[in-house]
């Protein structure tokens, strides 16, 4: 019994201890203000040196608490979810590694060690998506996530280089104080802002780099909840919020950020409307909500974005875990059209799912309402147009959430599986998360009564309409390929390129380039052939070469007058 669970228990205990630490850190930050801990000097190259350190301020302490708190609940849940997986030891290993890298990302006091965490969470995401490595599709999804993230990372790296060239440092304090001395719209600041945003686009699944996130649902459900809803995807949000001092100096970039966020919110919501896989709906909804947060950042509403990030972490983790509980109960089935009527078979799951769904669609007493309200308010002050679009997205959100709830929990069961409620070890974290998702909004209780009335009535209408459509008489409107950006990419980018390439190949390639290329290739092949003999595989020969080279270098150095 213990032997079966010990890996999970050990991993959870570690995260729980971290959570306790995070609470004490948060209290200290709250009482005495931010503080920094110097760890060690990482490396020095010339004048440029980087040290590792931990920075605790309100932002990072908040993230610290969120990552460890949600992480702990998900660890507990995973003990139940993964209990008969033969590789659960490895699974918890990866989860803990992920927590480590996420905390590195969040707590570091400079951009470079933050980048270490940034890469690390990407790696863990890759490992966990492809966790069930016997399925080839999952491996492809893992690779896709990794490559998509790498595109964004390239932006991050370039941004770091520009930063080092401009400021000569990557320490947060130095960079932000020096950036403050530059005029608004200074070219290098704009460049840094754009490049960092490219990085955030990859990690936080924004247009056009978001297609990896839905595919990432191949991993075990707790992973989807932890990494692809609550923590890693918020890394981009965190990074932009952290460097808001830079973004404040580049208003044009902020506009770009705003509209990218809005567009992502729209696209994500539309695609979510027509999915049949329960986890895909939630994944696209995550994309859409991340779009909200990015739009809020673009509008300068950092606090609103962070607030939504926290509440979203709670209710999206809750939704994913509850979906996991549904999938667990259905014996691995993820197609919503095969579900139905689970409200009586899985009462606890249904109750918590309802809380999450209401929070996601922004129903007033729940946390989602307050945070979404804050975001919309922030955006309204900057761009009424964006505000209007996002109101529409909110309506779409309510629709797909209602569709999800009705398809899964109402009506008759549309398959012959024996459904059972999940064990306590899975439902207890769910209840905790549900309480959090319901009440997290209290900490920011600013709202307009008008909004409450409008929202409630709109929601009631939407739920009434969708009830008849999805619960009473199921309308099969799935179209998984519809608007899938992969199709769009292949139609808009890949196909034309292929056509042009084919045309060019007949004219240019075969006549002009082929002869040149052939000659060049021959030369390369021949030189490679002759160089290949260097790699004889004989250690003795290598030792000779090493000694001879060292001798040549040493003699060269002593003859050369340096």
């Amino acid at each position, binding site marked *: 019994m213990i032997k079966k669970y010990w890996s999970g228990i050990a991993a959870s205990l570690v995260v729980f201890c971290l959570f306790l630490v995070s609470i004490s850190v948060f209290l200290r930050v709250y009482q005495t203000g931010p503080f920094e801990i110097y760890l*060690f000097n990482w490396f020095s190259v010339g004048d440029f040196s980087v040290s590792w350190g931990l920075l605790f301020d309100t932002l990072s302490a908040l993230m610290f608490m969120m990552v460890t708190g949600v992480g702990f609940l998900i660890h507990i849940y995973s003990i139940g979810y993964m209990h008969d997986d033969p590789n659960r030891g490895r699974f918890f290993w990866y989860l803990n590694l992920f927590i480590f890298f996420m905390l590195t990302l969040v707590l570091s006091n400079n951009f470079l060690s933050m980048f270490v965490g940034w890469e690390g969470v990407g790696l863990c995401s890759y490992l966990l998506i492809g966790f069930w490595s016997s399925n080839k599709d999952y491996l492809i999804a893992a690779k896709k996530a990794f490559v998509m993230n790498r595109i964004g990372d390239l932006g991050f790296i370039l941004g770091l280089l520009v930063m080092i060239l401009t400021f000569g440092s990557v320490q947060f304090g130095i960079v932000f104080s020096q950036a403050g001395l530059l005029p608004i719209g200074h070219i290098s600041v704009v460049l840094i802002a754009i490049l960092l945003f490219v990085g955030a686009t990859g990690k936080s699944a924004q247009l056009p780099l978001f297609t990896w996130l839905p595919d990432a649902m191949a991993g075990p459900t707790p992973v989807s909840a932890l990494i692809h809803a609550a923590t890693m995807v918020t890394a981009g949000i965190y990074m932009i919020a952290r460097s808001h001092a830079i973004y404040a100096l580049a208003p044009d970039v902020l506009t770009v950020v705003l509209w990218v966020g809005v567009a992502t919110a729209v696209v994500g919501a539309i695609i979510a409307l027509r999915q049949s896989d329960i986890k895909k709906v939630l994944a696209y909804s995550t994309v859409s909500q991340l779009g909200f947060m990015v739009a809020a950042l673009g509008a300068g509403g950092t606090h609103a974005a962070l607030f939504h990030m926290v509440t979203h972490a709670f209710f999206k983790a809750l939704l994913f875990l509850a979906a996991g509980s549904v999938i667990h109960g259905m014996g691995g089935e993820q197609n919503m059209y095969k579900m139905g009527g689970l409200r009586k078979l899985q009462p606890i799951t249904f109750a918590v799912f309802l809380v999450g769904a209401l929070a996601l669609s922004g129903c007033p007493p729940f946390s989602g309402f307050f945070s979404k309200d804050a975001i919309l308010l922030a955006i309204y002050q900057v761009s009424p147009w964006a505000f209007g679009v996002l109101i529409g997205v909110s309506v779409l959100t309510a629709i797909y959430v209602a569709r999800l709830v009705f398809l899964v929990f109402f009506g008759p069961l549309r398959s012959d599986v024996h459904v059972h409620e999940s064990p306590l070890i899975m439902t207890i974290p769910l209840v905790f998360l549900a309480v959090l998702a319901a009440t997290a909004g209290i900490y920011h209780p600013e709202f307009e009564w008008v909004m409450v009335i409008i929202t409630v009535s709109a929601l009631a209408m939407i739920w009434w309409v969708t009830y008849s459509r999805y619960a009473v008489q199921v309308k099969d409107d799935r179209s998984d390929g519809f608007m899938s950006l992969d199709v769009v990419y292949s139609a808009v980018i890949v196909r034309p390129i292929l056509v042009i390439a084919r045309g060019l190949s007949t004219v240019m390639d075969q006549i002009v380039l082929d002869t040149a290329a052939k000659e060049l290739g021959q030369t390369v092949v021949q030189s490679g052939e002759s160089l290949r003999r260097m790699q004889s595989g004989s250690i*003795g020969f290598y030792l*000779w070469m090493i*000694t*001879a080279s*060292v*001798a*040549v*270098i*040493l*003699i060269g*150095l*002593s003859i050369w007058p340096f």
Partner: protein
Amino acid sequence: MSDIFFWVFSVMAVVSALSVVLNRNPIYSVLSLIVCFFSIAGHYVLMGALFLCAVHIVVYAGAIMVLFLFVIMLMNLKDVPEFVSKWWHFGAAGAAVAAMVFGLATHLFQSYNPRVIGDMQLKPIAQALFTTYAVPFELSAILFLSAVIGVVALGKSE
């Protein structure tokens, strides 16, 4: 007094090192290398680095050379031709070594700055290891761990 010991140890070290290289019997090579390490340990004592001497003996004579002896005893290596076959290899090796020593000499002799250590104490070394060199120290611990795992994996018969 220490002059005499210096020469004794130096001659011992060079002769046993030559014996490592030139002896045809691998077991004798190993034993010569042990002798060489002991004479180097003697030099450490002369320089006052008593702790280093002890660690040197424990690590080299106590662990590394036992491994060599072990491996050589387990594989009967009588049939391996001990030296390179072609005569010009010896000449080339001599030339390469000479060139290297020449290059080294021109560089090192300018910057070499010997310091009398006196009594090299354990505490400062340990302090340096755990403060200034903490990261390399931890890294070498990781290196050790991975070597242990690697050796176990290599040694397992499939």
